[in-house]
């Protein structure tokens, strides 16, 4: 049991950490990052980009936080939030499995519970509207339901919308720190070889997937 004072301290620590982190991002470089350079050191130190073991199939066992059916549901949500395009999407790189593991290791109980409650809510609304669990809806229905949640309209309120943003944040973190997300969807360079203040950029270019220590 956490005492109230401990809770307050935790919150203060977190906001302070966030502030100092913001500061460090600015002092320590930038949120934006690296590009390939042809230099030999960079090549020598570059990560080998191995092929990803794709987990495109439906989950077959329960996770550390989520039940098997919750994981299946989460996989569908991941697929809709960040779908496959020229590059693999969130579901194909096991974002759902990563989120389960990350929630278990790096988040508090309250945040774990929030995500479980959110999945239950999504399922409840699916059953109300379509008499089917979310997982069994077609792509269009799933997309429409999540869009309502994302906007906090119809069956969803502002708090639920906020909770879904938290889930989207987990999905984004999982995807853009994955090998596919960081190095194929975005541009990754382990060893930039130096800093250049300006290079050309156009809308079709990807931003940097490599961010040093600070993700």
């Amino acid at each position: 049991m956490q005492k109230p004072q401990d809770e307050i301290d935790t919150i203060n620590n977190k906001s302070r950490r966030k502030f100092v982190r913001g500061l460090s991002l600015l002092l320590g470089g930038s949120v934006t990052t690296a590009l390939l350079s042809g230099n030999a050191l960079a090549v020598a130190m570059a990560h080998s980009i191995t092929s990803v073991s794709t987990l495109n199939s439906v989950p077959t066992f329960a996770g550390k936080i989520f039940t098997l059916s919750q994981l299946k549901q989460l996989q569908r949500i991941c697929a809709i939030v960040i779908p496959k395009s020229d590059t693999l999407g969130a579901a194909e790189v096991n974002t759902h499995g990563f989120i389960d593991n990350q929630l278990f290791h790096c988040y508090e109980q309250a945040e774990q519970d929030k995500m479980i409650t959110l999945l239950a809510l999504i399922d409840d609304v699916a059953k109300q509207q379509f008499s089917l669990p979310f997982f069994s809806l077609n792509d269009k229905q799933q997309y429409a339901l999540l869009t309502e949640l994302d906007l906090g309209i119809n069956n969803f309120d502002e708090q639920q919308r906020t909770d879904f943003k938290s889930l989207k944040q987990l999905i984004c973190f999982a995807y853009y720190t994955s090998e596919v997300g960081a190095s194929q969807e975005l541009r990754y360079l382990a060893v930039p070889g130096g800093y250049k203040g300006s290079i050309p950029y156009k809308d079709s270019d990807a931003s940097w997937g490599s961010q040093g220590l600070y993700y």
Partner: protein
Amino acid sequence: MTEDLYINNSKEVYDAIVIGSGISGGWAAKEFCERGFKTLMIERGRVVEHKKDYIGENKAPWQQPLRTKVDNLLVKQQHHIQQQCYAFTDATKHFFGNDKDLPYTTTKDSNFTWIRANQLGGKSLLWHRQSYRWGEYDFSANKNDGHGNDWPIRYQDIESWYSQVEKHAGISGALDNLENLPDGEFLPPFEMNSPEKALQAKFAELYPQRPLIMGRTAHLTKPTQLHLSQGRVQCQARDECQAGCSFGSYFSTQSSTLPAAAATNNLHIAPNSVVHSLIYDEGSNRIKGVRIIDNEDLSEREYFAKVVFVCASTIGSTQILMNSTSKKFPNGLANSSGVLGHYLMDHNYNAGASGDIDGFEDELDRGRRPTGLIMPNFYYKPDAKRGFLRGYALAGGAYREGWQSVQHQDGLGLEYKNKLKQAGKWRFGLYAQGEMLPRFDNQMRLHPTLKDKWGIPQIEFDCRFSDNETNMMLDAAEQAEKMLKAVGLVNVSSGVTHGPPGLAIHELGTARMGRDPKTSILNAYNQSHDIPNLFVTDGASFCSSAVQNPSLTFMALTVRAVDYCVKEMNAKRI
């Protein structure tokens, strides 16, 4: 390096013992060794070998099980304090102390964050590498407004020593020709990106007294022959420095001072040796050596030397002196003045402002620059009308947003994915680093009953920011917001926070220098007023915090003190 670099038991009377292997200790050892002195460097923690022990280096996030984050349980059990440091990540966590073994207390209503790095290299592995000379006004600030004691040195006393350490360490920066932030022996500065260049020009136009300059940092932007000969090469702009750098591109003990010291064959290192206290001989009024508790098996041993340099970090050094009591010094060694432990300072990072920059959409920067920009303290001249004493610098930089800034936006599917992929808005921020006044009340002391696992009394902090620091932060937020709006940023917001001292990790004071032995611990050469063969050259010796990051001044003071000590020893006065 010699095969017997690391020792455990030794009966030898060394020419010099250096306690600590961080920025100050590394320099002290190098300087003694290069003068032919048989030197023993004592480190309380484990050995960290350059390159080999940088176990978190160059790992992509997907190669880390928790993608840069640290497991809750580990944080709770071992790092609940250390995790507050911005640089605490999966790739760096092994360079931070284990809070379970390193307890400390704070008095009611006070708070202090004590970040620890107990291993060979100390915090030189983890530092932020910002390297600034102090100016004339910084050394005379205490005298001018009466807070704290007068520094016994002025800029000219330390100027040539700054030059010496800069050339060896490798400091990048631009020649900015500023009145109170003297230029040094610089390697080329890092580049600014285009929005930064534009803002620099705009600031120059609107605020000619408040220049925005490239941060000066201990990175090899263009290594010299000396650096290359040490196996150090050009900075690759990874900005993963605190994981360790096998390129040796930033200054650390491991990359710079240790190889130089080891090359003389005069260096020995006693790792895993927690200094309990100094051995003082009242008859000769000299330090004879140090008492050690083994870090791992808690056994005791002693080492002996003709002179002792205490470079164990500000709080660590003073803790050692406090725990070294005798009939003559019942309240801590070399503490006839009674000020040991007092005048504890840090810097104050509790204000900032940021906003969006219009334009530059067809540009991006490339590489992860390991420094930002700085607007040096523009309040260095005293002014009674300001409402507070001393001043602050504003550090910042421009960056283009990425997916982190888009993730909370509405949207799903391909359109959302495409938005996340693209570079977003340019943003710019300025964050304060404020001076903290030296105040007698801000102190550390030995806890009367609590001890750590080595049997050494724990530290109790009684330290808080005063109204002067709080008012300064309010001003910093206001000024930063005003300036950012004036130079054309949009959606500008500012704020102050209320973090306690400590987290800037610039702890200073507690064994201050001074002209008067009645009110200070050390003389103008970091030598104890009371005991001639005892020196403290780290942050503990500081009389004020100034605004600048202190590490470059640790280096210069240390090198200067060794030079003096060797001359005194040769003249048989020590």
